[in-house]
């Protein structure tokens, strides 16, 4: 099912959580809503589910397969919603939690006891919890609760699955496991899924598409590759990974040539370089822009080598190297080196500028 939001706003007590949002979620894709906390991503998800009502003025639309559902109640929208803290019914065991959606159907539509039982166990096998069917939520671990919440949401055969920070409350190891498992599950069932996260790694790893939100607006939409390699603005670039920011000056006379700002000069653009996009030179390279820096600290524990440097103005610069490169160069603390960027992005006033 495709989902489209047209001109949707949401205000809470005068605070604009979402500001005329327009967005389309493609059928069958796993989309990540990514942004810092308070950016409106959870509100967006809850609006799709019908758990929030959009501002009546200006009137927007929420289309499910082209049909406006904005006045449709939550229960009628057939969305599977997985809550951040799972919201499992604490007085019901796992089986009853999953069966709930079927038990509350109208008598004419309600499956028989036998069918309910079959469907519940099918789902519990899917989330690998069939042996725990009679446990209470309080007797489950965080990861298990998450999977019960998912099975419960799937039990009503939703056409869209919405997950609010699905891995937010789990510890690191369970998190990565469940992440992969969710991706597999989506591959198998592939219906339209949207999940909210503030973890860019998570979004980049499992989503088909990423929607970046900030202060109630959408900053960029695209595949993980697009948003990572072609960030639309400084916010996106900063949010998707570590980055070094330099103040720069755009030279209008020299056809928009950009150079790093000198001491005392006003800057009118920011120059952004990812830590892994630096080339380190031991000697001063003859031509091109270069930054002189002194190595302050080297950390080799981990998959890459992280080097803290400082430039002449004592500004911190972070550089990432592979272990091979690092060994080949034999760097040491206190050493003076020169950096040239392999790749950089320039944004003036937060907007991208042609290089």
């Amino acid at each position, binding site marked *: 099912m495709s989902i489209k939001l047209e001109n949707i706003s949401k205000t809470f007590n005068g605070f604009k959580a979402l500001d005329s949002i327009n967005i389309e979620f493609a059928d069958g894709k796993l989309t990540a809503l990514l942004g810092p906390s308070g950016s409106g991503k959870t509100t967006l998800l809850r609006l799709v*589910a*019908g*758990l929030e009502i959009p501002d009546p003025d200006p009137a927007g639309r929420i289309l499910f397969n082209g049909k406006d559902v904005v006045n449709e*109640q*939550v*229960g*009628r929208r*057939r*969305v*599977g*919603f997985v*809550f951040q*803290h799972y*919201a*499992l*019914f*604490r*007085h019901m065991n796992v089986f009853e939690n999953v069966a*709930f*959606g079927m038990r*509350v*159907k109208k008598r004419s539509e309600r499956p028989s006891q036998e069918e309910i039982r079959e469907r519940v166990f099918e789902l519990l096998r899917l989330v690998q919890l069939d042996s725990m069917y009679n446990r209470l939520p309080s007797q489950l671990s965080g990861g298990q609760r998450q999977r019960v919440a998912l099975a*419960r*949401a799937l*039990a*009503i055969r939703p056409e869209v699955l919405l997950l609010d920070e699905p891995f937010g409350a789990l510890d690191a190891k369970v998190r990565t496991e469940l992440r992969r498992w969710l991706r597999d599950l989506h591959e198998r069932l592939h219906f339209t899924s949207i999940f909210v996260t503030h973890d860019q790694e998570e979004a980049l790893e499992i989503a088909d598409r990423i929607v970046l939100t900030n202060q109630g607006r959408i900053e960029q939409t695209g595949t993980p590759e697009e948003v990572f390699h072609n960030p639309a603005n400084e916010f996106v670039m900063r949010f998707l990974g570590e980055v070094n920011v330099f103040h720069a000056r755009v030279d209008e006379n020299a056809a928009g040539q950009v150079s790093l700002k000198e001491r005392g000069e006003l800057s009118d653009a920011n120059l952004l370089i990812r830590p892994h996009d630096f080339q380190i030179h031991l000697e001063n390279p003859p031509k091109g822009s270069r930054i002189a820096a002194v190595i302050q600290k080297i950390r080799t524990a981990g998959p890459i080598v992280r080097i803290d440097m400082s430039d002449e103005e004592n500004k911190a610069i972070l550089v990432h190297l592979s272990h091979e490169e690092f060994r080949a160069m034999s760097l040491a603390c206190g050493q003076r080196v020169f950096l040239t960027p392999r790749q950089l992005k320039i944004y003036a006033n937060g907007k991208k500028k042609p290089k």
Partner: protein
Amino acid sequence: MEQERYRRALRAPRPVNILIGFLALGFIGLFLVLPLIVVFSEAFRQGLQVWWKSISDPDALSAIRLTLLVALIVVPLNTIFGLTAGWALGKFRFKGRSFLITLIDLPFSISPVISGLIFILLFGTYGWFGPWLTAHHIQIIFSVPGIVLATLFVTFPFVARELIPLMSEQGTEEEQAALTLGAGGWQTFRRITLPNVKWGLLYGIILCNARAMGEFGAVSVVSGHIRGETNTLPLHAEILYNEYNFTAAFAVASLLTLLALVTLIVKTIVEMKNDPRRRS
């Protein structure tokens, strides 16, 4: 080691603890246990038969009937109110909410006698509706409706004040989950909200019931003390006592005391089930 030393130091020395225990238990014994003992010993002073005769007396039986009737009307009404107030004030946030909660608590801070007085001012012979009621031959004061109204007022907050904080603390996530799964409002309330607050609800109900059956001041003002007609159990005990029929008075009191003890036991059980601190 260090910690263990402090921990030991934290505990008061033994003689101090013994003194504290002596004072605490002595005070409890004097003001709480001794009256209990007196009630039962006075009630059975002349043997089981006299006790039985006192409470199977027609006037006593009618008092028991009236007390049960009042509780049977008052407790369900206040329970329904408690549930609606719990839903509206516990699950939603809106302007004036805390003011409403204060209003609901109001009867707790009003003396029982005043609680009775206000109904006299409304429905008594010289009250607001007095002339109209007299003209239509409807009697509220000095009859059962007045007793019911005064008891409703006095026990009004019991269920609501248990449920509002409980429902508010539990939040609405589970209800929202039920809604996304297709449950209607009533189904959500019955299957999710109600089971989650059942112990708090029971707690409120038993306290409401205890007060409804035992209320004295407010009921005494509006009842008129008509034997066999408008006497509840506490009023019956009062009349017997004032007639120097002590044994019969204490026999009736022993019934009410039993009710209080049962209430305390149920309350303790519910607290153990309800309180996560004590449950774990």
